[in-house]
């Protein structure tokens, strides 16, 4: 493990193990992974903060349509730049050991693009567009080629979501409603999973 092991004391590893859903071995592996992004920077400073575009080159995040939002949610400074502890937090939530409630909570925050603690139509529209077109598509008009969908169609889809999930009929999804839907979803825990 070399340099990685000397970075952390036994007590720190214990702490990390208590605070996340990882074992010591997995924590060290995660650190190794993180360090490969910028070895000199991370090697000296345990609290080194890596910029978002560096993080988006990670194999786990590079193909993900919500990767930037993930980084923003987990970043302690809310601007997308993550320290190792933020990264560890992120991976721990996405691990297999994390319970469904934790995943649901974070999923809600990830999908809430404007941060107002409600999933309203604009959030949902962006979710749909990103699912079809990838990270850089935030509007139906940006959908191109054979994955084209008109904005009226996207609206129909968003209306369907609200019709299904919005229980109190206020035109947006609160966390309680989102949680209710996700509790019935059989595959959610399996898809909201990143294996390091």
């Amino acid at each position: 493990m070399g340099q990685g092991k000397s970075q952390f004391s036994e007590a720190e590893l214990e702490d990390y193990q208590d605070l996340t859903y990882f074992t010591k071995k997995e924590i060290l592996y995660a650190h190794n992974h993180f360090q490969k992004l910028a070895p000199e920077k991370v090697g000296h400073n345990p609290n080194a903060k890596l910029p978002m575009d560096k993080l988006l080159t990670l194999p786990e995040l590079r193909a993900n349509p919500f990767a930037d939002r993930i980084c923003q949610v987990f970043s302690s400074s809310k601007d997308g730049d993550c320290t190792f502890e933020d990264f560890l937090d992120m991976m721990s939530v996405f691990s297999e050991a994390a319970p469904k409630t934790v995943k649901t909570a974070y999923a809600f925050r990830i999908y809430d693009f404007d941060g107002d603690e409600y999933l309203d139509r604009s959030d949902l529209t962006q979710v749909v567009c990103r699912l079809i077109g990838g990270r850089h598509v935030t509007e139906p008009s940006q959908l191109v080629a054979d994955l084209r969908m008109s904005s009226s169609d996207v609206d129909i889809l968003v209306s369907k979501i609200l019709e299904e999930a919005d229980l109190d009929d206020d035109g947006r999804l609160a966390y309680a409603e989102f949680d209710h839907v996700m509790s019935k979803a059989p595959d959610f825990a399996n898809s909201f999973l990143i294996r390091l």
Partner: protein
Amino acid sequence: DPCVGDELFNGTERLARSSSLLAMPSAPPTPSPFGCCHVPYRATVQQRLRLVQELPLKDQIFDYLLQVLQGTGLLEYSPIFYGFYTKETIYVPWGDTTKSYELPLAYLSAMLFLMAFCLVVMVRKAAQGLRENLRSTEGEFYQVCNLIFGGWDFCVDNNKAARVKHRAIYNEFCRHLDAERFREEKEMRSRKERSFPYIHLLINVLVLGIIVGAFVMVWYVTTFSFGQLRLAQASVTAGNNASYASALTSSNSSREFLDSYSEVTFGINNSHATGPIFVGSEHVTFTPEAASNAADTTWRSVMTSQDVVSAEYDTAFDADDVVYDTQTPIDAVGVVIVPDTSNAVLVESQVEFVPDSSNAVPVESQIEFVPDTSSAVQDESDQLRVASTSGAAQVLRSTPVARLVTASSSSFTPLLTNAKTTSAFSVDEGLEKVSEEPASGDDLHPLLMLVYRYLPSATIIALNIFVPLLFNQLVLLERYSTTVVLRLTLMRTVVLRLASLGVLLYALRSFTLRSYTVDCPTPSLHNCASANCKGQVLCWETYVGQELYKLTLLDLAVTAFNTFFVNLLRKVVGQHLLKRTSFGQRVGAMEFEIPKHVLDIVYGQTLCWLGMFYAPLLPLITAFKLVLVFYIKYFDCSFNSRQSSQFYRTSRSNALFISILLISFIVTIIPVGYSIVDLTPSLGCGPFRGLDAIWTQMVNLISALPEWIQSVVFFLGTAGFAVPTIVLLSLAGYYYYAVASANQHLVLMLKGQLVLEGHDKQFLLNRLDLLIKRVNEDDDRRRRHHRRNSDVSPGASNDITLQIGASR
């Protein structure tokens, strides 16, 4: 076993070597109370095996292969099939006493226990699935949410997979949009015009018609192939029908013939049949002139190869013509012909020379015969017995040494002066085969027999492949939504598969329980299979087991063929060779359709359950087959098919598949149960032979139990128990259903209440907003007012809002 070691059976065993199926002579009652019919069955199977071993090596291997494919030969009398198990009781010493272990009872109990166990396991799984389904029927309503929030697989880490995933999600969205549009269209359609309302009825009738057509086809094919097999088998067992010719020649030209030669008796199996010497029924008299040339005539008779031919002929001596004197030797030659088989057969023959007693003149004569120096043995009577070997003509000569004729009446014709000798007649040495009917078993080529044996199974599997395609096309006309389409097609295919299996079983029952040939009596304990009914199947349970075994093997073969030839070819053609053409696209576009593959597996399991009773090791074979099928389908999925562009909600369909499995199980219980309770087990094999029905074994067991258990069990079977139980169970079922529907209604009500709560919340928030706005306005007004009239103090006021504003 009191049946083995019986002399009778040894004799018939030898005879059996020349024929393929044993014709049981009517045996005298044997000490075994269940008859000894299992001995000839075993003997038949073993004898067939021995026939195979006598073939050259290449043919042997080919034959062994056929045996494995058909379950005959080596496999027939093996633990795989029912016929191997015997009616034994094993005695085990246990302390001071011996305990008995009855094999038949063990067999029956093991089967019943297995079925009960399967039923319990499946019902539990089905209940779990049903509970999941009921609990999350709202899961039906969350399809789009699940797709959007849980649709992206976060494990995806490269762009290529990401593109595939994007496309899959896009397709799902399009499907939902289409469903939405379809629903709107349907609503508008139902409001505007009544489209052809009978289309559903019509399509269902059509589907029913197709299924009935499939029945008829299976029935016809089964009948046809059984008929062909019966012909082949009957001809094999009846022996080679060959014509043998023998020629009668006279060799001595210088003598005077007897004027007539009475019938030559040919003995077949020691029972004599007589026939004319010449072709047809004409006698030919030998004339002296004609006597100078040797006259060859042929005489034909249809005989079987196992027949023993003995010749007896009476010669008529005309006292007028023949002169005997004491010195003249009378030569007589008789020839006994033995058919050319490779085994020695002890044969008796008689050659008798009988003076013609039709002369009115009583003649006393004494004839003494002395055999010649060949290996003839003289008996006490004037009979000569000769042992002969096959193929050789045995010539008997007897020379009368002395002849004394005394006349007792005066009308005796005086002796002639000339001594004449009788002529010698010889039946030609050896019987030559002149013709042979092509009805021997070898002439129906074993490959053709294989085809006929597999024809019913092949038809069923072909129907199972092609008719669902037809169903898929038909269901498009009905314009249901996609989930309904899926379920309906699944149900129809299941009905087709189960029904065709049912038809096959019914056909099997009809053909094996009846004798193949007409006018065959039912086998009894003392007459296992009558001699004329050579086509009778001695052990029908093994036959049924073999049919299901063949179905299983064929299923495996078809799966492998489908994957490795059809799909692989399609992939090569569609995805590589003709990649750019639209034809190539359509041909190569294969996806891994889960419902079809699950149905295949359910079908294999159904076969296993059906065959389990008659082929006890069939579950083991099915286990191996399923392992192979898994790897074959894995190859198919990963190599042949493209990436699936559809999500598949496997979790929800699990309950559907388990319920299909349960339905199949219940449907298979019916024929198996019927055969246990109602059909007579065959006399020749199995642990239940001699009983009226397999269930009587159980009845016998219950009768052996103490009195009170018997009365309890009988009570359980009476109507007095059954009717109240049924009523109670129905009431309980209805109660649970009522509770469930009430709960669902409650859920709906609560959802409505939630909406109302939401409206209330909105209303209150609006009121609060209004209130705050008004307070702020008043506050501002007051401040402006206060600035203008700075000396006016607010003071007390009745207006609450002003007080609030003041206190702030």
